[in-house]
C-alpha cells in the first residue's frame, strides 16, 4: 500500500482528499500546517506528497517550504503542488524545489488521482 501525505489548511478539502485517496487504497496521512507536515516527513517514508501552496492565509507560500523540506529529507519522493494562486513564477519555484506537477486548485479528484498514479508508476 502506497503511503501518501496530503497537506492543506482547509479542513473540508483535507477531509475530502484523505477520504478519496483512502478509498483508492492509499495509506494517507494528513497535515494542516507546515510544522506538522515537516514533523511527519522527518519520521515517515512517503511515496508521494500532495501539498497546497498556501497553508495560512491567501497569498502565503508554505507549500514551497514543504517541497524544500521534502527535497532535503527524501529527494526521491515525488510531490504535487496545488495552488489557487498559480503564477509562472510560483510554478518555476515549485519545480526548482522538486515538484513533479503543479496543478490549479480546485482540481477534480479523478484528475488528481490520475496524476498521482502516473508519478508513482514513473518511480523506479
Amino acid at each position, binding site marked *: 500500500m502506497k503511503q501518501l501525505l496530503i497537506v492543506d489548511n482547509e479542513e473540508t478539502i483535507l477531509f475530502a482528499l484523505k477520504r478519496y485517496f483512502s478509498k483508492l487504497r492509499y495509506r494517507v496521512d494528513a497535515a494542516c500546517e507546515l510544522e506538522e507536515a515537516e*514533523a*511527519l516527513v*522527518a519520521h*515517515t517514508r512517503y511515496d508521494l506528497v500532495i501539498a497546497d501552496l498556501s497553508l495560512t492565509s491567501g497569498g502565503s507560500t508554505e507549500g514551497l517550504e514543504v517541497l524544500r523540506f521534502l527535497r532535503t529529507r527524501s529527494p526521491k519522493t515525488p510531490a504535487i503542488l496545488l495552488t489557487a494562486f498559480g503564477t509562472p513564477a510560483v510554478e518555476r519555484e515549485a519545480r526548482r524545489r522538486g515538484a513533479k506537477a503543479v496543478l490549479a486548485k480546485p482540481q477534480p479528484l479523478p484528475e488528481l488521482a490520475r496524476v498521482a498514479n502516473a508519478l508513482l508508476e514513473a518511480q523506479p
Partner: protein
Amino acid sequence: MKRVLDRIQGPGAIRMEFQPIVKASGGEVELYAVEALARGPRGTSVERPEVLFEYARRKGVESDIDLICITEAFEAYAQLPHQPLLSINVHGSTLASVDHFSDRILSAAKAYGVAPENLMFEVLEYRAPWAIETFVSTLEMLRDAGVRIAVDDLGVGASNYQMIVDCHPDYLKIDRHVVRGCGEDRWRRAVLESIATLGSSCGAVPVAEGVETDADLETLLDLGIDTLQGWLFAHSMPPEELALHPLFSAKPSLKGQCS
C-alpha cells in the same frame, strides 16, 4: 480548523504508557523501574511520539509539552497499585530554560504523591548547546531532592561525552541503535563494553534499551549490563494493563541503584 497545538495541549490529550525496566540476575528478571512514554492524541498525525516531539520542537513549544508530559506521567503513575522507580524523559533545553523547573516539578510530584527518591529524569537532547549554568544548577537541585538522573539515548545524537560530563548521571541509558544486534556484531559489542567500563568508572548504572533477542541479552549479561529494557521483556502499555502484568505482581526491587 483547530490547530494541532491546541489539540495537544488540551486536557488529557497526551496519554502515558509505561515500559518496564528490569534487572536480570541468576536467570531471572524482576521489575526495576518503569519508563513513562508519551503518546499524542489518538487518531491524529502526532500520535507517534517522534512526530509529536518533532512538531513541538518546530513550533518552539518543546518545554511546554515536556511539562505536560511530566504531569501526565505523575497522574498515570499515581494509578498504579504500587510505585516502582519512575523514569521520565525531559529535554536538556527544558532543564535549561524553564524558570524554577525543579521547584515546579517537585511541587507537582508532591501533589501526586510521587516521592523524589522514586523519580528519575532521563535527559535527552537533539540540539546543543543550551544555557549550561542553568542546566547544571537545575540538575543539582533535583539531585539534592533525591531525584536520580540518566543520560538518555547514549551513543546517538547529542547524548555524548559532553552530556555525561555535564549531567554526572546515575544511569547511562544506551540507545537501541547500539544495543540491537550486539549479539552478532563485534563493533556494537565493543561500544557496549566501553560504556560498561565508563559506567563502572564513574559510578553510573548502564541500562540497555531495545533488548529484543536472546543473543543480544546474552552479550549484554556477558558484559555485566544487567539492567535492561525492551520487547524481550515487555512492550509499553497503559497503566491499567501494567498493573496486571506478571512483572508488576512482585514488589519492585531497587537494589543496585546509585546514590
